[in-house]
């Protein structure tokens, strides 16, 4: 049946209400099962040996002593994970990152693994594995790595995207460029030009749940994997390919997930756990320690960004240009490319050019982190926008309003926008009481805008109606923060029944068709679209069953408020049939009633936000406190507004940590020096104020209810908003994130010394 995804402007009964989530009670009673909470009979404990060197050739590995230790059931190295990637470079990188093949490429890179009867034995066994390393020169700084004298991480890398293939290999894997118009002409027309360089340090997603899985490979080629992941279907594909299994014979069940933020979209330990299980012939549980999470699972990029923007006296931007260098870890990525696409996406620009460089460094493989690459680009651009507004003598909000992208604007990365929310968020901020609140000494206010694409993708959903009229909704997008509640609301809305009649679950890979990752803020957007489609398919069957019961043409039966109604005066004596009544007699009218949907959820509406932040900086210590914070963001339609607020608040809090404190600190030896929550300090309760939110609803024309993704955009503006606030508080432009106390003091000292 053809599904029409267009926005219909209907009135809602369930959508927009705030019921308690269906998985809530298990989570407040401790019963919810996360990655490490699952066990299998005969299970072994897996542990991974990791390189202490940032860059080293693995000359040999001797596992014989470890294998002889009583209680050790399997020891593996890269030899136990043969290369089955068949020329697929991206998959080869995933394989090599799971277990180093020739070289260790960062401090923490896996080189061997054991499975033993208990954790103590496994730890002892790791100490008995002898690895002979030839240590190589390493490089961890993004700017130093991009320099042509830097030690090469991979001598087969020649920069892609240049007009001619370069003569020499380099650590820059790719150059990308976006934009339109003529920036030289644009800058010539400008009355004011501001140009600055910025740096941001590497941060980790910081989910509280370390990566964890239980793998069980059977002798008949079937296998099970229980794992915390943002995308069990993708994990199945990747693991099946790397292990040489048939995808349909590897059943992957996603556990409850204790935070991901993009960091659980990539396999690391899972192929290792499966290989250990295959070798040992027993299930293997593999749980990362926090130290391993920091050293070996994916952080975001460290960046170095140059921005130049010019404007006429009347406040019109005439040209904008940015060069962005993003670290990728030791493997190719497209992180600077995304930064280059998002950098100027908030603005209507005649002349714009962005260039991205992907840079290899001896750090863990960069992974997605909530609107990956956008926060750093926004920090650099929004800082220059603020500075340019000051040069022009214009209010920072008015300057942005004057240049904001609108419906019909050609975006800096190519597409032409439909209805968008950047203008409305700016107008809301302009009128927000926060903007007028008085500030005290050493306090400053900043604001900034942010953009994220959002994603739709492949989605499959089953909706089954029980004989008692209750509804089971099986979705394939992992619930990272309340989507089972929002999707139950959508099913209830479409069927015209009560929320309490619906129970949503996340189905495993053997129970449902393929689903893309829960990334790109797509969980509620795409699965709600599939749920609406599945519900409409079920309604078609419900109408048919009612028509059959009444013995009238199905065209004369409509579905309203959870009931089949015979339309027309001639049917005046037929009382409506409820979903419950139709379900109860389904055994006699043709069997079970269900609706299925398989679709590609196109048309994820782009998302914009504007944040306001007040800070207080202690000029003696450089310590900064956020004292007030407001998020204004377009949700398209907030399905469960409380969880939408939660996404806004959570993104802002992560951004505050990034802006003020969080960073990977590497020693000269290339080793990570702060691989723990004590020294990599994420914001705690006493660090933050309440975070006010304002939800705007500019419907997405490509979703029946107008829904846009909401999860990621909220982390895009904070770095810039806080940097603008700190700069306003101390009177010095801050250009290096995080703005930790030593950096703020150094900036103040530099200013005093002139």
């Amino acid at each position, binding site marked *: 049946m053809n599904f029409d995804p267009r926005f219909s402007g209907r009135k809602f009964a369930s959508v927009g209400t705030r019921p308690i989530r269906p998985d809530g009670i298990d*989570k*407040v009673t401790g019963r919810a099962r996360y990655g490490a909470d699952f066990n299998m009979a005969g299970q072994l404990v897996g542990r991974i040996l990791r390189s202490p060197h940032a860059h080293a050739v693995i000359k040999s590995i001797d596992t014989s002593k470890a294998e002889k230790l009583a209680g050790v059931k399997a020891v593996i190295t890269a030899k136990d994970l043969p290369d089955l990637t068949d020329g697929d470079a991206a998959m080869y990188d995933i394989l090599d990152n799971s277990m180093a093949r020739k070289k260790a490429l960062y401090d923490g890179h896996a080189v061997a693994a054991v499975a033993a009867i208990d954790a103590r034995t496994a730890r002892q066994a790791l100490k008995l594995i002898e690895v002979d390393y030839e240590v190589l020169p390493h490089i961890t700084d993004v700017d130093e790595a991009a320099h042509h004298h830097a030690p090469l991480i991979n001598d087969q890398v020649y920069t892609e995207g240049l007009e001619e293939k370069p003569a020499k290999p380099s650590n820059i894997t790719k150059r990308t460029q976006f934009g339109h118009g003529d920036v030289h002409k644009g800058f010539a027309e400008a009355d004011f030009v501001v140009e600055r360089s910025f740096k941001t340090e590497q941060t980790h997603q910081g989910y509280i749940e370390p990566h964890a899985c239980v793998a069980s490979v059977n002798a008949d080629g079937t296998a099970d994997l229980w794992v915390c992941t943002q995308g069990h279907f993708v994990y199945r594909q990747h693991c099946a390919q790397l292990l040489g299994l048939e995808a349909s014979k590897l059943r992957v069940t996603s556990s409850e997930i*204790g935070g991901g933020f993009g960091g659980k979209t990539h396999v690391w330990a899972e192929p290792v756990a499966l290989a250990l299980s295959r070798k040992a012939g027993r299930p293997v549980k593999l749980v990362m320690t926090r130290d391993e999470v920091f050293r070996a699972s994916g952080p975001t990029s460290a960046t170095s960004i140059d921005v130049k923007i010019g404007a006429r006296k009347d406040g019109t931007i005439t040209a904008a240009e940015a060069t962005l260098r993003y670290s990728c870890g030791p493997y190719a990525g497209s992180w600077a490319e995304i930064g280059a696409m998002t950098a100027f996406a908030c603005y209507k620009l005649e002349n714009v050019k962005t260039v991205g460089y992907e840079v290899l460094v001896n750090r863990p493989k960069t992974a997605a982190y909530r609107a990956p690459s956008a926060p750093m680009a926004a920090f650099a651009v929004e800082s220059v926008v603020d500075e340019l507004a000051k040069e022009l003598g214009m209010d920072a909000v008015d300057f942005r309003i004057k240049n904001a992208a609108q419906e019909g604007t050609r975006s800096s990365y190519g597409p032409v926008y439909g209805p968008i929310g950047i203008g409305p968020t700016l107008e809301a901020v302009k009128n927000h009481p926060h903007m007028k609140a008085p500030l005290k000494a050493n306090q400053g206010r900043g604001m900034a805008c942010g953009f994220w694409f959002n994603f739709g993708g492949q989605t499959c959903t089953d909706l089954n109606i029980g004989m008692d009229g209750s509804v089971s909704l099986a979705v394939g997008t992992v619930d990272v923060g309340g989507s089972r509640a929002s999707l139950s609301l959508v099913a209830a809305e479409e069927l015209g029944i009560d929320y309490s009649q619906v129970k949503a679950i996340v189905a495993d890979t053997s129970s449902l068709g393929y689903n893309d990752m829960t990334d790109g803020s797509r969980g509620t957007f795409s699965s709600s679209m599939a749920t609406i489609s599945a519900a409409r398919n079920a309604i078609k069957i419900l109408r048919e069953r009612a028509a059959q019961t009444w013995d009238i043409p199905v065209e004369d039966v409509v579905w309203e408020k959870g009931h089949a109604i015979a339309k027309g005066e001639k049917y005046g004596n037929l009382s409506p049939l409820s979903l419950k009544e139709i379900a109860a007699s389904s055994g006699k009218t043709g069997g079970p009633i269900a609706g299925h949907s398989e679709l590609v959820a196109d048309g994820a509406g782009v998302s914009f936000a504007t944040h306001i932040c007040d800070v207080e900086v202690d000029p003696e210590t450089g310590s900064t406190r956020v004292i007030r914070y407001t998020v204004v963001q377009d949700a398209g339609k907030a399905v469960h507004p409380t969880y939408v607020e939660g996404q806004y608040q959570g993104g802002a809090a992560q951004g505050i940590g990034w802006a003020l404190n969080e960073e990977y600190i590497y020693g000269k030896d290339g080793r990570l020096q702060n691989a723990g929550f004590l020294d990599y300090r994420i914001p705690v309760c006493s660090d933050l104020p309440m975070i006010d939110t304002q939800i705007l609803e500019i419907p997405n024309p490509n979703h029946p209810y107008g829904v846009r993704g909401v999860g990621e955009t909220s982390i895009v503006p904070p770095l810039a908003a806080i940097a603008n606030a700190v700069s306003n508080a101390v009177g010095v432009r801050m250009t290096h994130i995080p703005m930790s106390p030593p950096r703020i003091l150094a900036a103040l000292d530099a200013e005093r010394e002139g």
Partner: protein
Amino acid sequence: MAGVAVSTTINGDAVEYLCQPDETLLEVLRDRLGLTGAKEGCGTGDCGACSVIVDGRLVCSCLVLGAEAEGRKVETIEGMAHGDQLHPLQQKFLEHAALQCGICTPGFLIAAKDLLAKNPSPTEEEIRFGLAGNLCRCTGYDKIVRAVQDAANVMKGA
């Protein structure tokens, strides 16, 4: 290594177990007793996800040895509700959506219970500092603080 025999009380029930001398209380709870409500987020006492109450004192169970529970009273998340009746903190966490992924929730509930036992009418600042030993990466703490405030009001009225 010989096991240590431990007799203790967990959530009001007498419990006996054997554990290794270097085994943490968190490992005993999770791996020997099947009480997986306490979570290991760090293993170093920095995240609070493994919070339990031992003889009225809030502790990170990853920093307590299993052998140290001998003769003590241990309270975990599994004992917070009374049968079908949720503790007011549990109910308010649900109503305020004070959890997203939920991995930190058992630790927050135990820490909040301990806080309200010692200070039934905390200010916002007292709640924020009282819960500063528990990390949450999803919520920004806003809804957690509000849920604790609301629960405190309900518990005072009860």
